[in-house]
């Protein structure tokens, strides 16, 4: 039972970690590829003084931090609770 619980907890952790990594890679390389292949779009002004590129650059930074927040929030509640349960189960045996 404990082995089964551990397995599913470990798999969930890696699924979330790898998905979030993929999101980060997509965001950043999306930004870089837009710079590389669509310069006119990045230079288009949304309002006086604010281009798409500058806005997206700031968004990449903010989103990186949001992603770390999403992970830490999940891990501090669900993952840690699962680990605590596993440890309790082991101590009881």
């Amino acid at each position, binding site marked *: 039972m404990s082995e089964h619980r551990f397995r599913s*907890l*470990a798999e969930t952790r890696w699924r979330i970690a790898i998905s979030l990594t993929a999101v980060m890679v997509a965001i950043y*390389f999306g930004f*870089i590829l837009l710079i590389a292949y669509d*310069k006119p779009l990045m230079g288009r002004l949304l309002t006086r003084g604010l281009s798409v590129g500058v806005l997206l650059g700031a968004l990449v930074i*903010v989103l*990186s931090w949001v992603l*770390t927040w999403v992970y830490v929030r999940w891990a501090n509640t669900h993952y*840690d609770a699962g680990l605590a349960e*596993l440890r309790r189960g082991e101590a009881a045996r």
Partner: protein
Amino acid sequence: MTVLQAAAQAPAGPAVPTRIGEPNAVAMVFFFAFIAITLGITYWAARRTRTTEDFYAAARSITPGQNGFALAGDYMSAASFLGIAGLVSTTGFDGLIYSTGWLVGWPVVLFLIAEPLRNLGKYTFADVVAARLRQTPVRIAAALGTLATVTLYLIAQMVGAGGLIRLMFGLSYETAIVIVGAAMLAYVLFGGMIATTWVQIVKAGLLLGGAAVLALLVLARFGMNPVALFAAAADRYGAGVLAPGKLVAAPLDAVSLGMALMFGTAGLPHILMRFYTVPDARAARTSVFYATGLIGAFYLMTFVLGFGAMVLVGPDAIKAVDKGGNMAAPLLAEVLGGTPFLGFIAAVAFATILAVVAGLTLSGAAALSHDLWVNVVRHGEADSREQLRVARVATVALGVVAVVLGILFKGQNVAYMVSLAFAIAASGNFPALVLSILWRRCTTEGIVSSMVVGTVTTLVLIWLSPTIQVDLLKNTSAWFPLKNPALVTIPLSFAVGVLVSLATRDDLAVERFAAAERRMHVGEA
């Protein structure tokens, strides 16, 4: 990165009234206050540094908030403060590409590396890679990767320090290098990780505080509205400053550099070592969240500092003081707060370099003493006294090497060395870490080949790249087209690790996987 380029050049005669390059009393006072405070911390830390656990891992007593600041301190070098502000002030949007690139590695560190590292290792990242593999070959290969990364990073910082100090304080290059070497040795040798951590925390506070004050002073002139600042820049220098320019002329170069920055952070030995200073995996996790916030806020401020310098100082005036543009932030400080504020910012820039050098030296010393001496030469049979003695000898040796290399590379353009260090970390260290943590079937032979091939091909391809062949050796063409080899070397290192593992057998490694996997998640029983 271009800070180092500038540092290597003699200061050009200022075309604008500036006191940069003249001995600055305020800078001296702030700088010596920083040295005095950090040596005081070192004295306090030295009395608490008795065991190897204290020396390498600050007795695992650092809180997540403190470690967040320390990680930020280790990561934010003078290159990012002066270099990016300079790049934005002279090129506009192109400089911002670096502001984002330097941050995006941190989520990757959090998701893939921080917690398994804390649970599986003791002092170095090699502890994790070697957890279920054969110690000797893995430790030697990991030490090679660590020392290559640390040495290149150290050279870049030392040469940068020498040039900066000459530019800002008017001291000679050699004097500057020796001051940096001596102060750094004092921190690491006597205060170990406890002192090094607190030096990073003080420095991160100063750097963030200084940048924040500077950014607020700029924004105060534009109704606290960054967009009004960008508009003023576009009005004066054309809308082109808000769009991508020449920096990313070759798309593949941009992608390759991006890969090095994104995955290199997760392979930097001095960053990884910080996760051992906190009590457990949860603290390691939380500390990355704080660090990412602090570093992200800092890079967002570089938007304001860069465009602020562009509008308030002007690209031509900045380039007149220093061709690389690296004096943009100090010049901006002078415009906004006069000579005293210039002195403060100059002292912050120097403190920044000093702290980064200390962190690098400690992680290099850990590779030499913990990985090579204790685990390879002595097969783990060294007592605490001997381990500490060897660690201190290694620290002194690295300190001397850093000073000598700093002086040898005087006047050289070493800007490429920071991105090279990231490329080695991304290709030599990161794939081995990921494979050994995630893949049951990997073998000692596979991991060692991945590390060696990753490190060596990175070095060779950089040598054959336009960075060295065209920019440095003035040849007309280079055999390898990319400025940064990460686009080739990261996949290559993964492929070698997988193929060699599949071609060999390591029954012990497979057998030990279940136990290691459990420890990686649950921690020590």
